[in-house]
């Protein structure tokens, strides 16, 4: 059972465009949603995270939009750069009960110069 789903599996955009990566989840108790990015031959690292006290979290060119009613969130990368090319993982966990961080299968982003 896949509790965290990501789409698309892969995405290619041109430099300067906005990349939109989607994530949905099933468990309504999830209340923490970090995004990790992973460059080829490297380990995942935290990029940005949101707790649903807010519908939006911004950090420079990276913005998370959160829709609690639809159990969906998206990561927008504005003015995409070739250096943003990586695999992006959406994850989710609940602060009560099983805290376990559940990862999606990732979106592989390629930014063409």
């Amino acid at each position, binding site marked *: 059972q896949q509790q965290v789903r990501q789409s698309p599996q892969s995405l290619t955009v041109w430099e300067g465009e906005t990349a939109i990566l989607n994530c949905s989840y099933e468990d309504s108790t999830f209340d923490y949603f970090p995004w990790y990015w992973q460059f080829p031959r*490297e380990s995942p690292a935290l990029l940005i995270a949101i707790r649903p006290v807010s519908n939006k979290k911004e950090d420079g060119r990276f913005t998370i939009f959160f829709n609690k009613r639809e159990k969906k969130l998206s990561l927008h990368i504005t003015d995409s750069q070739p250096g943003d090319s990586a695999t992006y993982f959406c*994850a989710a966990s609940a602060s009560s009960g099983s805290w*376990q961080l559940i990862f999606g299968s990732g979106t592989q982003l390629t930014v063409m110069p």
Partner: protein
Amino acid sequence: GGIITQTPKFLIGQEGQKLTLKCQQNFNHDTMYWYRQDSGKGLRLIYYSITENDLQKGDLSEGYDASREKKSSFSLTVTSAQKNEMAVFLCASSISTQDTQYFGPGTRLLVL
């Protein structure tokens, strides 16, 4: 700052072999984790430990054992390697389960 070290970087084993992977962290974090990453898939939790000598099973614990010998180290044992198995095993640590997890460089396993 701190660093997580995983040994070995590459591990080639034989079917049925018992294999041990090691992880060390100097963040002074209480919680440590072992994840498995298969090509094209997300990370799946094998074991975690919230303090020295503590062990908790993740969703993928079958076929694995773990040991938290001291606060800074966490070992994972593949009890019987499966033929053609190929995956990356990632160790991570965090202050607590609610905090950011920091990942090590990984051990790449290939079973012949």
